[in-house]
Structure formats: structure tokens, C-alpha cells
């Protein structure tokens, strides 16, 4: 029995077409390359941070088809055919901040800022799924993102504030 149907790639470099922040990009990478490496090292999208590389901290959170994922635990080849959104793709093209980003700034939901893109992306996935989260739902959704500076209380405030603003913007 031969796996005639299977498409085997690598182990050397292979061309990959990815859709990142609504843009098609072509990269050449080995199958072992993670989405995090592609974003940071090939595409210079360094807003997605590299901290633990093992799915233990959340700093590399991106969206895959709108769902929050750790880019360090995702192979780039797995992202082919799926929509990838990074922190750079969250604000609008003219640079206007997303309401979550705005709320993080105003409420000071950050200190050193290194975990912040991941926090914002985790929160954005939550609000896309649940536009009016309770306080407990916010905390649960942020449980996969470590903030060593301890900005959590203000992160929770920022997420609640953004949810309220986005809701009133929809009603207007």
C-alpha cells in the first residue's frame, strides 16, 4: 500500500503561501519552521514576541482563522490556507488603534509591554466570540498569557472598557 495521495514536504526548504493580515505572502522555509519564526524572522512582524518557545506564556498569541493560538506551537506549514492575524493586523491600515489597543493605553494595561501584543490578541479573540464578557470570563480568557510586570488588574479593566465601547459603537 503506497501513500500516493499524500503530499510530502521537506525536510528541506519548501515554498509556502500564507495569508497574513489579509495579505498573501510567499516564504521559503523548512517544515520545522514555526509560524512564530516566519513572522519574526522572515516577515519582520516582531510585534508577536518570542519568550518561552514552548507554549507556556502567551506572548506569541496570534489568530488563526480568528481563533487565539500560540504561534510558537504552530508550524508555518500548518497555517497554509488559513487566515493569520497578528498584532500588526489588528489596528486599521491608517494606523488607528483597535478599541482594545486604545483601552490598553488609557487604562495602562501594560508596563514593560513585552507581553502586551499577546494580551491584546487574546482579548480580541475573546471579544470576537463573546462581545459582553463577565469579569470572570475575561480572567478565564486571559489565563494563557503571563504578565510578569503584573498589569493584570488594568488589563482586565481595559478589556471590559473596550467591550463596552465596541458595544456602544455597534449600537450607534
Amino acid at each position, binding site marked *: 500500500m503506497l501513500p500516493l495521495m499524500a503530499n510530502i514536504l521537506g525536510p528541506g526548504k519548501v515554498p509556502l503561501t500564507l495569508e497574513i493580515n489579509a495579505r498573501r505572502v510567499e516564504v521559503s522555509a523548512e517544515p520545522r519552521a514555526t509560524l512564530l519564526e516566519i513572522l519574526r524572522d522572515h516577515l519582520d512582524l516582531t510585534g508577536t*514576541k518570542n519568550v518561552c518557545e514552548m507554549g507556556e506564556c502567551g506572548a506569541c498569541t496570534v489568530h488563526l482563522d480568528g481563533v487565539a493560538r500560540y504561534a510558537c506551537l504552530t508550524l508555518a506549514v500548518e497555517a497554509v490556507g488559513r487566515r493569520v492575524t497578528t498584532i500588526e493586523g489588528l489596528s486599521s491600515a491608517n494606523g488607528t*488603534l483597535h478599541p482594545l489597543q486604545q483601552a*490598553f*493605553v488609557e487604562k*495602562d494595561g*501594560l*508596563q514593560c509591554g513585552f507581553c502586551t501584543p499577546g494580551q491584546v490578541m487574546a482579548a480580541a479573540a475573546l471579544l470576537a466570540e463573546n462581545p459582553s464578557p463577565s469579569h470572570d470570563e475575561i480572567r478565564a480568557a*486571559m489565563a494563557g498569557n503571563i504578565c510578569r*510586570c503584573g498589569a493584570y488588574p488594568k488589563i*482586565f479593566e481595559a478589556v471590559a472598557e473596550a467591550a463596552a465601547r465596541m458595544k456602544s459603537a455597534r449600537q450607534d
Partner: protein
Amino acid sequence: MAKKTKLKLGFPGHFKQVAVSLPAGDPVPWEFDADLKVVGKRVPRVDGPDKVSGKARYTFDLRLPGMLHAAVLRCPHPHARLRRIDTSKAKAHPEVRAVLVMEEKEYRFAGAEVAAVAATTLAAARQALGLIEVQYEKLPFVTDPDLARRPGAPKVRTEGNVEVSLETRRGSVETAFREADAVVELTIRTPVALHTCLEGHGSLARWEGDLLTVWDSTQAVFDVRDSLARALKHPPENVRIIKDHAGGGFGSKLQMWSQTPIAARLAKLAGAPVRLLLSRHEDFLCTGNRHSSVQTLKLGASRDGTFKAISWRAYGTGGIEGGAETSRAVDGLYRFPNLEVHEENVYTHAGPACPMRAPGHVQGVVALEAAIDTLSEKLGLDPLEVRLKNDPSEIRKAELSVGAERIGWSRRGPSGSNPGARKRGLGVAGTTWDGSGLPGPEVEVSIGAGGEVTATCGTQDIGTGTRTILAQVVAEELGISAAEVTVRLGDSYFPYSILSGGSLTAASVTPAARAAAAKARASLLRFASKELGDKLEDLECSDHQIRVRGSNRSLSWEHMAQDTPSGRLSFKAERQGNFAGFEPAAAGCQFAEVEVDTDTGEVRVVKVVAVHDSGRILNPLLWESQVNGGVIQGISFALLEQRVIDHRYGTVLNADMETYKVLGALEVPEIEIIPFPVAAGFNNTQVIGIGEPAIIPTAAAVANAVANALGVRIGELPITPDRVLGALESHAKGRR
């Protein structure tokens, strides 16, 4: 010439006139209730938009054309000597551009650097490490400080493993203990903790001829410059260290670690820029930690709770270097007429310690406050009353009263009196830390040909908000908004500043910024007075111009800047020495309420009330963030964090963020922050740093609350379920 005057220092109800000697030329401190427009306001972080959008570039995010990637070969043994090394296969790897073997051939902890490789990709560099053939001679080792103290233990250094780090005596503790109505003794152990800043340690080095530029993830660009110049025997003026944004530090980036010279040397060898970013695993092994402690405290008091004496005997390990001491907070917190301190630093074959947020204080206050609660219990007194009786600080006594009310201290029952499996408890602890700042930093304020205002200083913003408070202080002095001031920092080519640590930054840098801005303002006024022919007192500085009061005549800064040969007005000032203050240090206290589940051993912090003074609060929004951060790191230390070494092999077992556990979103309690503004003195902005004060009391308050809930003292941090259940079991056995 210094100016002798009197300042009204203190806080409402406790103001007093204090004679001070103000530095010559320095602005007069703002009054306690001065009507300030920008300072003291909740100004959002000026670099916030860049950080939330991913635009802010940290050292880990930088790339240069032609840049190589480096990786380090590390000794897997806790103690070994190099027998043989052959790098020829690594050198022959087609992507490798440079290989470096360290001069040091004896390795004293698992993780010590042996060799390093620079290659065109990181994968190739890592692969090449595997091609280095190396033979070690394994040597005897000891990683357990209790074993390292024993005679005959393998030596970490030739002088022996134990060094006395602190020895103090005052009065006679022996007599005082004899005469005391109650004496208690207890031993508290705290673990080695890891800073875990999310941006690890990394360096990107580039040579242009003799000029070496290193982008470094550091809290101290000037210190790294000097250390690197020494390490490379290169003139410091030809070394430039740059750090724009930093992803945390907490003390682990105050000194140069090996990745900086390794990157620089590989870059020299390869003739190309080299980036060396440590992995999380490497970071946890090699770039500092908070030393452990075993503290035995003996406390004596009279029947009414007045402290008579304390004996403080402690040891801890900072691995191969870094030191260990815990008792420095004692005099700032309580009055002990008789005191004896004996502290030892125990060397072990483990990664080096270094300062970690409030070094020594965090560990020491846990033990001291535990001893006070135990003593109060023995005397049948309210531990809060005992503290108030012995506290030398008027500020903290007032804070304790405020905090007690907010946490509902009157609800606190006798220890272990809660029925049921889930038991609540309350605890309190105090803090003391001198963050009144140091002289030396210089700030340059300039006004460009477009009227734009820039403040430049080689300080660092490690997430504390330095950039923002500098903008606020300059804006206040010049009558503009913080957003209109561009702050440039993190570059050793900028005017000098001290390291960003020890809660020193705000109090060391903002007075220089204010002085420079005041010079700018005075100069603009003088210039305009001459130009417009109006008297100085008729002029005001606002809205980027000098206006004549009651008329529509004005002169723009832009115009004045363009009128100079350089097209730019520039004013520099240096932070002068401290003058007198109201109290010698910042005070503060925290109260914690916990719930302990006696079936599962789980401890949940329900609420923390944090009452803190830090002189003038320049920006309440950012200040609250600092306090939140202190409390949260303190809880994390109390309940979760500990580096684990298998002492049979000398190997760290949890050098990762799964098993080295730092606090996450679901562990965050309600935190009520109560600012306690004080006219503190010391410097012209009257600021004291808040970074360390905010973390010092938390673990102590939590540990005391747990003891109150259970009626059993957990003698070792972190207070994890195994320890809670273990202590309850031994307690139950003891009672049977």
C-alpha cells in the same frame, strides 16, 4: 552656594518645618499642594501606542543587514574542568562564520559558557554546537546550601563555601532576652526565585572600525558600557550601548552578563554583526536569581508588646556569586534597642544570584513579620497594635490605620478559629526602602527649530514609565502637555544616568529634568525680555511661546531657536545631592486576606490592601501599575515560585515557564491601592521610588494571613498545597 531654607514636609496632620540646604541653582521643590497641570495627573504612558500595536522594537526584535546568529555551548555538569575541546568540525560547517572558546576552563555551575558559535542562521548555529567535541573532567560539586556548609563539602571557591555577609551588634540581646516577658524563636525558609522578565537577555553587536555598538537588553547602559570596555580592553568612549524598549528587568539586567561580550567578540571575529539571544532555558540558568534564605529569628518583648531585642541568624545561597543577606529592613521597620545579626552567604555550584526587586528585603520581611505575629500571639496581643507600638515611622503608623480599616482588620479572629474546611485569615506587613534617589544623572532639554521639545537622558525605561514621567516634568515646567515632549533615552551616547534599579530612577532623573527645563524656561524668558523690551515679570511661558501678559505680543520658541547659530536651544542640568527629608525612607504597608482550603491545601488570596507613600506621586495611573506589579510578584513569590535543583546531579529541573510557575490571571486578587502622598523632601520633585516598596510586604502579609487562617505556621515559601497539607498533618499528629 547652597541655599539654606525651611520646607514644609510631612503629610496632613503631621507637617513640620524642616531645615534644608537646597543645591545651588536647583529649582525650589514644588509645594505639597501646588497646583500642577501635568505632574500628578493620570497621563497615559507616552510609549503606550507603540507597545500595544507591536511597533515598539525591543532588543530581541532588532536585525541588521548581514547579521549572524549566535548560540552558546554550555557545560552540563555543575562542576567540571575542560579536558579537551575540538571545534574544527563546527568551524567547517558551511554556515558557521566564527567560533569562540571561552578563556575560563573550569565551570562551576550547570549552564556555564564553554564555547560560542556565530552562523548565518540560528538553526545552523545550534547545529554547529553539536559538532564541537568536548571532554570534561567532572569535579566534586555541591548545590544544596545545607550540605555546602558542612566541613569537607566540595569547595566552590578556595576560601571556603561560607562567608559572613553581615554581622551587627547593638546593646546586649542576651540580657534583653532574659528580661523579656516573652521570647519566640522561629525559622523561615525562602527559595531561590527567578526574575522571569519576559524579554530575556540578549545582545546585538556591531563593529564599525574601532567603534563597537551593542543593542543590549539592559537596565543600565552606562554600567554595561564600562563592563564591556573592561572585558574587551577597549576604550569606553568607543563603546556605545543602546536600549530603547526593555521587556522587564527586576534587577536581572543591572549588570553585564556573558551574552554581551560573547556577541561582541563573535562579531569581531566574523566581521559581521552578531545577535545572541538567550533562550528561556538559558536565561533561567545563567542570568541571575533571588538568593534563598534560612532565617532563624528570636524576638523578645515586654508584656505590653514593646520589643526588647532581636537576634537574626541567617544563611542563604546565591550560587557561585551574588551574595545573600536578609536583615537590612529591620531598623527601618521597627525599633529594637538590642540587636544581633549574623548572616552567611553560602557558595554553591549553581547559577549566580543578583539583585531581584527589593533584594534581601522580600525574604527578610517574611521572617520578621512572621516572628512578630508569633510573638503577638504568645502575648495575647493584636499583632497590629504590637506593630503600631514599635514602628518608628509616623507615615507608616498612619498608613497602618488606614489599611486596617479598609481590609476590615476588626474581623480578624484568633488564629485557626475558623470552622469548616475553607478558612479565612488576615495578615499585615510593613515596608521600608530608601528610593530617594542619587546625584549624577544629567538631562538635556532642547528646543528645535520647529519649536519641538526634546528631553534626552541615558536612563532606561524598563516598564516603570520613566519616559512618561520625564515628559510630564518637562511639560509642567514649560507649560505644555506631556505629549508635546519627545523623550529620548537608553543610549550611552546620551547624557549620563545611573542604572534603573533600586527604585532610584524617578527620584534621580526627574529632578535633573526639572532643573534642565527650568533653565530652558528662564533662558527663554530672558531672551524674550530682551527681544520684546518687556520686563521679565510681565512675561509668561506657555503654548510654545513667551507672551506678554495682558497684551497680544509674544515670541515663539521656534523663532528663538532659529535665532541661534545651531538652530537649536539646549539646556543641560545635573541631579544634585539629596537634601533633608521628612523620614529617612519610604514607608508603606499591606494587608492580605486569604482563604485556605484544608482539604486540598490550596491558598487563594482574596484581597490585598496596599497603602503606600512615595513622596509626590508624579502619575497615579502608572504608580498604581507599579503597586499592582509589586503585589502580584509578591503573591507569586509567596505561593508559587521556586527554582528546583536535583542536588544529586546539580541540575535545575524547572528552567521553563511551565514548572517554574509565575502568577497568572486567575490568581489575581482584588487589589485596593491607597496612595498616601507625603511632602518627602530629598529632591526638587520630592519623589521617592515605588518599585521595591510595593513588593516588600506582600509575601509576608500573605504568609501571616495563612498562619492566621490555619493556626499553623508554614515555615517555608512558597506556600503550596503539599506544604499546607504536610503542615496540617504534622500539626494534627503533634496534638494527638
